[in-house]
């Protein structure tokens, strides 16, 4: 009904004239950011497409259910998949209790004014940044040989990988515990709960989604680790599934590594197919982690 009243005065007279350079600079900055972001995305896309072109035709049920072979047409990744699953089982079994216990100690019990607790903290931060091959050397010297002398077994490989990701589990576990507000602990203690009851029945349950997210992300890192497994001497040609913790094994990244180093182009196609399987596993794990986080995340 009522139309906008005609301005009696021109805009520029009221608000002033904007400098022309401002608009140009604004635009070009946004363009620059977009270009830089697309560099990363383009590289990723090229890699994925290239892998998919090579690998997708090789994917089949028989590829997933065959053992490695000298003949590319018969070769598959069943032993690599089962080996990876066994390894992840060992890793999970080790990192959950050790990681949670360490995080609990550092967050709830350690007295920060003591020098040894500060040393532990700094060391855990640093260990998270140590290259995984260093853990491989450690695993070779102390787990495969040396004091533990486990040999080139599933258990030795799993323990080595657990060492690689343990610092990350501890750090994310501490963050998850710290995310529980102190008022929850106060509330429990004020009801006459002991310190242990407050931690075990309130703080720990409240931080489980965060801890679980950290564990899953750590496992998805461990799944792709190749260097430490090469050092601890995992085999690359294993034509059987692991039968137990003391069994020799191979794993997906090792199988990929081995096929890529073959001169025969056919094997490189197989490597591409195995990469796709590994990527799918990783995406699945990350999806579970994100879902956990979104579903149970507590807004305090």
């Amino acid at each position: 009904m009522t139309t906008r009243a005609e301005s009696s005065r021109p805009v520029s007279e009221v608000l002033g004239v904007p400098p022309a350079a401002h608009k140009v600079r604004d635009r070009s900055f946004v363009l620059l950011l977009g270009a830089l972001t697309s560099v990363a995305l383009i590289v990723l896309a090229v890699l994925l497409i290239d892998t998919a072109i090579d690998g997708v035709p090789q994917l089949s049920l028989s590829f997933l259910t065959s053992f490695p072979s000298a003949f590319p047409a018969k070769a598959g990744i069943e032993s690599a998949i089962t080996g990876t699953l066994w390894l992840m089982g060992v890793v999970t079994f080790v990192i959950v209790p050790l990681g949670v216990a360490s995080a609990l100690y550092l967050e709830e019990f350690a007295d920060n004014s003591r020098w040894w607790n500060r040393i532990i903290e700094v060391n855990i931060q640093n260990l998270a940044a140590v290259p995984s091959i260093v853990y491989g050397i450690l695993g070779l010297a102390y787990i495969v040989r040396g004091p533990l002398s486990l040999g080139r077994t599933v258990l030795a490989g799993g323990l080595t990988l657990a060492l690689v990701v343990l610092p990350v589990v501890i750090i994310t576990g501490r963050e998850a515990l710290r995310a529980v507000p102190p008022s929850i602990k106060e509330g429990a203690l004020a009801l006459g709960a002991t310190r242990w009851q407050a931690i075990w029945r309130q703080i720990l349950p409240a931080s489980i989604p965060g801890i679980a997210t950290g564990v899953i992300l750590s496992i998805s890192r461990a799944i792709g680790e190749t260097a430490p497994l090469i050092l601890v001497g995992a085999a690359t040609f294993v034509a059987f599934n692991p039968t137990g913790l003391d069994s020799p094994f191979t794993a997906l990244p090792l199988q990929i590594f081995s096929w890529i180093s073959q001169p025969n182009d056919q094997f490189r196609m197989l490597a591409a197919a195995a990469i796709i399987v590994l990527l799918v596993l990783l995406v699945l794990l990350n999806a579970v982690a994100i879902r956990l986080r979104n579903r149970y995340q507590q807004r305090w």
Partner: protein
Amino acid sequence: MVGDVSDLDPASDPREEPASRGVPGQVPAVPAGQAHAPIPAVAHDDVIDDAIENPVFIAEKLSVSYGISPAVLDVSLRVPEKQITAFIGPSGCGKSTIIRCFNRMNDLIPAARVDGIVRYHGLDLYGGEIDSVQVRKRIGMVFQKPNPFPKSIYDNIAFGPKVLGMKGSMDQIVEQALRRASLWDDVKDRLKDNAFGMSGGQQQRLCIARALATNPDVLLMDEPCSALDPISTGRIEDLMHELKETVSIVIVTHNMQQAARVSDRTAFFIVDMGSSEEARIGRLVEYGPTDRIFTNPHDIRTEEYVSGKFG
């Protein structure tokens, strides 16, 4: 022996000039022989009027320091049984610090140091053989911000009775606690829902119900309404009136009107502004029946505060 009216020995008068106090780190000098001497239950001062028989708490020269600097100095008062006692004063005056001595919540702060004596039904709360967990089973606490556990309404209430190993039907205990906090009708159909889905006022009443579920003797409330709207505040104040039939209540509030509305006795604290943040020291200025504190304060600082001249 506590509350023995017949003994009026002036030597045990806990009053002392604040200026003459020694280093706050020292335990107040009580002659060894008099450590358990009867404390006269009479008004021992013009401004500290605590002629109370059977007090639930007695604070004697209570001082709390964080690190080296004292936060509250020399608080002596008696808290009556089955009444509501309000601690008022400007922020930083140490009223919350003092209330946290009554259930030993200050133990959780490593740097906190408590000097002086707090007696609970005559028992020295900071005595060597006292277990702070045991103390908190008898003395419940409600905090400034509602802090329900991230669990169901039912589990929130059941936690306390469970850790205390209370016998009997848990369903009954939960229902009874919710009824006492007049929350039962609001939530009886959604006991399994997460407590975070409740309104702020309901959450705070849930925290009160949670504290009541363990049948405490005392309820300490540390500014329980400061995060709530006026209607929720009114409901909690009504609730306090009902509760004082069965429990003794100490409430910290910076809301003078609230203290005037709900409390039987009021203690007014003040903060001595020092040269720096660390040098701020809280002190008890005046204590007595609420209507007297608000209508006829004896100390000029109390008068200025309750009449709204500062704070």
